[in-house]
């Protein structure tokens, strides 16, 4: 596999220098998703302030594409209102990365899934505290 031909420049950039990697202590929302197809695991932590994603961090065990999609999604949503963030699709993530090899599109599904689940988790936490 020639990585420079297999992955776009953007993907490689995110793998080599991932953004927002790590964890958030006391996150407002967190989600861990796994991909049964290839075994990748992705975890997203979010902080929400005034209806916006104020901070986001990821942890991923997976291939290059899994790392790149996780890193990419954090840069796409940081500082954005939840309403906009919820509209982000797997296609948008793949496009932002300059495309993914067809066999790797499931990695963008994983990233979108993690994001939406982290927001769900945040909403659940909010409704709990209200009660």
């Amino acid at each position, binding site marked *: 596999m020639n990585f420079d031909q297999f992955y776009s420049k953007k993907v490689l950039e995110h793998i080599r220098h991932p953004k927002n990697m790590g964890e958030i202590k006391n996150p407002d929302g967190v989600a861990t998703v796994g991909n049964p197809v*290839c075994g990748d695991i992705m975890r997203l932590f979010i902080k929400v302030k005034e209806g916006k994603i104020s901070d986001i961090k990821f942890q991923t065990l997976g291939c290059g594409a899994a790392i790149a999609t996780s890193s990419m999604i954090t840069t796409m949503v940081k500082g954005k209102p939840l309403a906009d963030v919820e509209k982000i699709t797997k296609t948008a993530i793949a496009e932002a990365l300059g495309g993914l090899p067809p066999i790797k599109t499931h990695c963008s599904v994983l990233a979108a899934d993690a994001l939406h689940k982290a927001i769900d988790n945040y909403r659940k936490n909010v409704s709990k505290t209200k009660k």
Partner: protein
Amino acid sequence: MKKIYLDNAATTPVSPEILAAMEPYFTNKFGNASEPHFWGQEARKAIDEAREKIANFLGAKPKEIIFTSCATESINLAHKGLIESIKYQVSSIKYPHIITSRVEHKAVLETCKHLEKIGWAKVTYLPVDKYGIVDIKDIRQAIRPETVLVSIMYTNNEVGTIEPIGKIGRLIKEINQSRISNLKSKIFFHTDATQAIQYLDCNVDGLGIDLLSFSGHKLYAPKGIGALYIRSGVPFVRQQDGGGQEYNLRAGTENVPYIVALGKAIELVEQNKVHSTKCIEKLKSKLIEGVLKISGVKLVGHPTNQAPHIATFIVEGAEGEAMLLLLSDKGIAASSGSACTSGLLKPSHVLTAMGYKPQEAHGSLRFSLGKDTTLKEIDYVVKVLPEVIKKLRKMAPKLI
């Protein structure tokens, strides 16, 4: 940046001596070996010499060696050629039975599946132990009256484990003796020796092998040339029809320069076997020693019963493709059995057959050494790999 090639089990570069030996056969000595004129006879002589070198190496007769395009073709030809012959020429056997293992190369597994699909054979896929070794007792138990072929690889390409080829050969000989006295048809023994030919004893009589496949590009010959040893007397139907080349067993104008290259490659293997095995073994133990210092890393395959050039590890908390990518950034080429590198998104069938979980196979990393590997290169890998693993582990979620 220095570049370090540790994927010699995938392929090797063509060595200068081999390139020089084959070169004249592209231009000046270009004849068709089937023609009686000078050019044709020159080509014929070159083919004969290469065939003789290979026959001598295997302890076989020259007419038992068939040139093919690669090991995959040899394997296809060995299985299909034998099975077709038995299926249509032995009336007492309706479904010839093949015994093979779950850790074979895809060339064997897919050929067997195909033979099952078209109704030419029934196949038993034997399990292996945690080292990837087939149990002789399992082979004995799997044998049925219709069993005609046992196909077990010599050395596993993913983990380097050596199968008990000599013992299997003896078992089959023993069973065949009682079969002959009962006028039953014989069992034949095929081995895929692709990863073994360079380093291990391949004397077909000593090992009791009837069919043996290998290719040139793992031995510093070019891609596109392989050979199949077929013991005289093995029932066989050719699978590629046309002219009478290769003793009527594989039609098509002979690829003279590549055949010359394979002959030269085997000659060099024979010359260098002892020395190169020792050197590579030494470098490999140095590599293993260094890599195992990293926590959460284990060696897979048999610890001693192993081909000298292959070292495969399972790294906890790091994924294979990501490791390959970061290693590649450091100039190092290796290989992995992770689902993400397979193109099919399935973890290595070899590691799963050995009992490793898909998530373990996810972190597999294979280094395979070659004649040009140096101690300096091994030291560099041992220095760089911990950083690569550390970087990926830092990225991964803590699961427990």
